[in-house]
């Protein structure tokens, strides 16, 4: 769990990171049948630490989300005030 020391959980070299085969039930089947459930670590090709990680993709997704919220906020004006009769406020 989160409180466990990092060294026990995360292999240090990329080679080990791709494996950790002991905890994956059937490594042979991964290529043939797709992913065994919970074996996302089996596809790891490199280790990225805190300081090396720049979540630029997250920024892009959140920017897209905000753009949609903004567009819908403008669209709402047409739905609420121009699309129907006046609504009672207050």
């Amino acid at each position, binding site marked *: 769990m989160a409180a466990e020391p*990092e060294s026990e959980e*995360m292999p240090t070299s990329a080679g080990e990171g791709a494996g950790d085969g002991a905890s994956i039930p059937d490594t042979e089947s991964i290529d043939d049948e797709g*992913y065994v459930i*919970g074996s*996302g670590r089996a596809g790891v090709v490199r280790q990225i630490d805190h300081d090396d*990680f720049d979540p630029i993709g997250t920024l*892009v*997704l959140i920017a897209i989300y905000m753009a949609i919220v903004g567009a819908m906020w403008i669209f709402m004006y047409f*739905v609420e005030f121009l699309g129907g009769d006046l609504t009672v406020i207050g």
Partner: protein
Amino acid sequence: MATFVDRYPDEAKVVQASFAVAFIALGIGAFFGLIQALHRTNILRVIDSVDYYTLLTAHGVLLALVFTIFFLVGVFTWAIAKGFERPLPDIRLTWAWFGLMTTGTVLTAVAILAGLVPEIPMSADVLYTFYAPLEAHPAFYIGLAMFIVGTWMAGADWFLAYRDWRGDNPDERIPLQPFMVLTTMIMWYVSTLGVAVAVVFFLIPWSLGLIETVNPLLTRTLFWYFGHPVVYFWLMPAYLLWYTVLPKLAGGRLFSDPLARVVFVLFVLLSTPVGIHHQYVDPGIAEGFKFIAMTNTMFLLLPSLLTAFTVVASVEHGARQRGGEGYLSWLGALPWRDPAFAGMALAGLMFAAGGFSGMVNAGMNINYLVHNTLWVPGHFHMTVGTAVALTMMAGTYWLLPQITGKTVYSRPIGLFQVVLWFIGMVFMSNAMHRGGLLGIPRRTAEPQYQNFDFAAAVGSVGEIRMQIAFGGLLLFLSVVFFLFNVAATWAEDRVDTPVDDTIPAPLSPPSGAPLILDNLALWTGIAVVLVVLAYTLPLASIVTDSGLLGSSPGFPVAISLEALAEAAASALPHVSLDAAAGLRPLDVAAEAAETLEVSR
């Protein structure tokens, strides 16, 4: 390599039992959902429209309360034992709360379903929002009270486990998963107080005939005092899985442990003093109180947006470690063929869309546009119906092997099932939102009216109905596949290593989190103060207006013909013959009513 069931066999049995009850409720509730979707869209009507409300109540209670909360107690029991690395303090206490919750559930379900059998003098067609003036059989309320008390005992069980752990580890940070469990339970204790008062002091005595009337606005307000935090109670196990399991499934690590703690503390503080935003159109509550509730609600966007950032960044970390590149193409490097990952990721995507309609619900002025329309079920089928339910189903594919020691029967069926749920919900929920904008009401067996058509700017009402029915069918099929996969998994033989159950350490460790975040007593205190500030004046005003017990009879109101005839007779002398001769019946009636009012 040993997994959960090998390390904590007793706890694993409780988790298995909780999941079993949850999945039975899911199967029954989903079946009723299909019947309703076909009924209200007029595709296929196999039940009487009067029975629609019985099934609607069962659908809401079995899915929104039983499925979600039984799954929650299972996940939380797993998280406490795994996180504290020790068995629960006394397994008899654990079985006691499970037994009480299950007994309460059976009692409530029987009270609801007896409504389908006319020979049994029992009914509880009060919907999941069970406030007055709708009145249920006492067994319904008593069962619910037992269910809630069971969850309180479960919380006590987990806090006792925390006390034991703290005794041995006086200076350590609370492990993240147990931290999430404990904060969620604090929120639950604060918020269930309202519904407990409503049920124990008003609804049970009223349904037993000990008191004649209740104050409907008071029971409504007490229900919504609990009715909004309960949605976070459903959501928190999903958040627990998104924060601690999803990054691992993606091949990465949680981006920030301190940020996760901040989010759960914010939910303790902000979940409860917002319930009045469900009552924007209730007369009897001053606008100012509603405005305060709206402001508090908008603050609740903060932890959800923090979650969007942290969880997406953690998933991106997994994608980058798996070789993902670029601004968006890293998404392709994620393990989309793993049903546990794909289901949770799609659930998160749907939750983002649910956020859009949630913001509309939360705004006082635009809420009037959609209040009590089909928009609202459209919204909560995205949130509790997908963000929570789909995460729970997807999480099952990773958790079930740990608590049974068996590998999942079929990964492809699992993947097909979670994608089918997502597609079904896109159809149904989108159409419900659009229908709501046209003014189509919710909670209605036959939303068709004579001499009136809902006007659609885009598409048609018929097309919206078809989408709702089709989506509902896909959702039901998805549940069938899910339950088949779960049952087939359960029937398998045990293996040594059914799943990779390790959870990697966060990128930003808990040591970076301010110590004050772990001060549970402080956050409880502040949460109580906020609730007192938000609710004292509105409740005082409601009680001052019409008393603790009000004066409203139960509904549906029986109209006495005698009283009607008397009123008509006394109004007759005031009817203007001129108006009557002029064939203006509305004017006649209005005039008569006016003079009657004056003559009183």
